[in-house]
């Protein structure tokens, strides 16, 4: 123990940054091509990969304890619950003949 703090190597920080810039270019380029319904899917996939890179390396979750990882995951699981339950209501309203209230 007592080997001092865990330090993310500078080379890892620059690699992650380079990947983030490539992904930014990719998401901008993808937005100018018409893929129909796949456009939002591609944009959100790239954004999620960028967020994962930031969480894992810049925020050092990859090097953290399991308990911290559970806490990190928990925040996003709650968000998923909010989104899934809300959307399951709104996308199914027309099936039961309930209109949009606004």
């Amino acid at each position, binding site marked *: *123990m*007592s080997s*001092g*703090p*865990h*330090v*993310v190597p*500078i080379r890892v*920080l*620059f690699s992650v*940054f380079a990947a*983030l*810039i490539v992904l*930014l270019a990719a*998401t*901008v380029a993808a*937005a*100018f*091509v*018409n893929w129909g319904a796949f*456009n*939002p899917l591609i*944009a*959100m996939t*790239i*954004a999620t990969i*960028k*967020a994962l890179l*930031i*969480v894992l*390396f*810049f*925020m*050092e979750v990859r090097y*953290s*304890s399991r*308990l*911290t990882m559970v*806490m*990190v995951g*928990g*925040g*996003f699981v*709650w*968000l998923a619950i*909010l*989104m899934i339950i*809300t*959307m399951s209501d*709104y*996308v199914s309203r027309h099936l039961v003949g309930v209109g*949009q209230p606004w």
Partner: protein
Amino acid sequence: MSHSSQVAHHFEDIEQQNESLVLGMWLFLATEVMFFGGLFTAYVVYRTTYSEVFHEASRTLDFTLGTVNTLILLVSSLTMAMGVYAAKTGRRNLLPLMLVATIILGLAFLGVKAVEYSQKFEHHLVPGAGFVWPGGNPPHAQLFFVLYFIMTGMHAFHMVIGIVMMAMLLVMAMLGKFGPERYMGVEMAGLYWHFVDIVWVFLFPLLYLIDRS
């Protein structure tokens, strides 16, 4: 400074104390995920319901300024991460430099945002009595701009808080308060800064890049 003097009396050792700080910060960030999550959910509901007018409204946003701002925030995340690196490895000259860089990039982001907001005022695209929408379905176009201003506004507010935190860290860093023995303040502020960056990583494609083809 001895190792033990850093440990508060209710912790066994420095590892347990640091672990608790990280855990507590992530618990706070989980509440932030839920705070922005409510706004994102509202956005998804309205975009799926009124997708056509949301596509039109999105195209009025300045895509170049949005891309520049995303670039600025990604660079600021790199300087922040290097600040944490400098604190942990005891590079006492590098740390203030990285904090200053992060502050400047944060201010640059807010500056670009201010330019965008003033353009919206000029073009009468701010929700309210003065809102003018040339296309069809103005009430729902207005909805897009309500979400745009609330989401980017709350994000900018978080940026302001982050910049104030960076300024406080800068003063402490220049007083030589940080080093391999004491760096958690920088690391915690870093977690906050990166989180605000992640929010923008999602805001940018959702608001600016809906339909550019």
